[in-house]
């Protein structure tokens, strides 16, 4: 598979998954996700997918500091309606990393290892998302705003041409390149675009 070089240089997320440990899937349950894993599953790399990835990275860092985050021990709330806009895209990224789902996923064994009921939408929270550790009750809120990282103005024009089916092969390629350059710029400005606060 050929993909933009920066995918391999973005921060990875290491977690411990007690269910993977129990079933002998990964030694000590240690798993690691990178941006490439997420992009393949999401079907694309865009400011929404990279934002959801970075929000999860920063929220878990803040909640766990030097400890390894535990999959299945993290509850995630969203202010948004899952049926509108990009909420579902964001939720899928967060699910892939934390294991948290609303209805889907493993339902547990003797009250352990369940992955459902760990996500909710339309939440009454002061930010876009809230991540909560179920063991300590500690939670953080997260906001994402990539507006300070502008894209090349040519993108809009090229996208219009692509959607009308009048773009040349070169223009299609150029659009993809400019699009991924913006995503890369978002990764290079993590602290400007992701705001984490204790809640």
């Amino acid at each position, binding site marked *: *598979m050929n993909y933009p070089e920066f995918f391999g240089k973005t921060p990875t997320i290491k977690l411990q998954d007690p269910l993977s440990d*129990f079933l002998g899937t990964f030694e000590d349950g240690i798993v690691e996700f990178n941006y490439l894993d997420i*992009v*393949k599953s999401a079907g*694309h790399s865009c400011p929404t997918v990279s934002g959801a990835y970075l929000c999860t990275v920063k929220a878990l860092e803040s909640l766990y500091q030097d400890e390894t985050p535990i999959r299945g021990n993290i509850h995630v709330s969203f202010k948004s309606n899952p049926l509108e806009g990009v909420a*579902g895209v964001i939720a899928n990224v967060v699910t892939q990393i934390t*294991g948290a789902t609303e209805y*889907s996923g493993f339902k547990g064994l003797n009250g352990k*290892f369940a992955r459902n009921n760990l996500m909710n939408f339309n939440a009454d929270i002061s930010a876009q998302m809230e991540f909560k550790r179920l063991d300590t009750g500690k939670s953080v809120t997260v906001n994402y705003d990539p507006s300070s990282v502008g894209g090349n103005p040519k993108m809009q024009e090229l996208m219009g041409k692509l*959607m009308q089916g009048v773009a040349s092969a070169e223009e299609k390629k150029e659009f993809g390149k400019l699009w991924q350059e913006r995503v890369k710029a978002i990764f290079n400005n993590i602290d400007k675009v992701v705001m984490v606060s204790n809640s």
Partner: protein
Amino acid sequence: MILNYPTFFKTRPTIKLQDPLQKFLGTFQDGIVEFSYLEITKNAGHSCPDVTGAYLMTLRALKALYKEELPIRGEIEVSFNKDYTDDITSVMADVTSHITGATLQLGFRGVEGKFSRIKKLKFNEEFEGDIRFKRLDNQKEVIAQYDLSSIPIDSKQNILMSKIISGEATSSEEIEFEVLWQQRIEKIFNHTADVIKIIE
């Protein structure tokens, strides 16, 4: 870092697809993506007969639907005959969603009517079998059936599992259980033709 996992995870067939949205947004050259069993288990949080079954049914069904062509992500509808709240169904649905891109309601909603990934995972559909896969470009469909009765469970596995759950297992018993559990998964992979039937 290097993750440690059973060696057979690496030697299983991968699933290669073409994703038009990836191509559009310059993510993968020509939109070509490939999934492995390892990635699926990372996301599922475990490797078990349900995860394996869903992986193998998807692999075989896509082969039957697309033959030598590359399957197209976002153009495949996946149906189950139970509700999405059913345990095994939802674990299997998550695996098929990861590979085909199909989602019930969470997922990309499309740009000007293109590239949508929602409403492509269906539940409570009426059909005999485990998972139905349909190509949305030519309406061709196949049903996958998964039957593990030919792959017996080592009698020790269940005894060890109860011990672990009741907190009475030693650490060597925990490891023995893990080995037996994954050995059965490896056997399922090695007997794909016996456990998976594709009905065209």
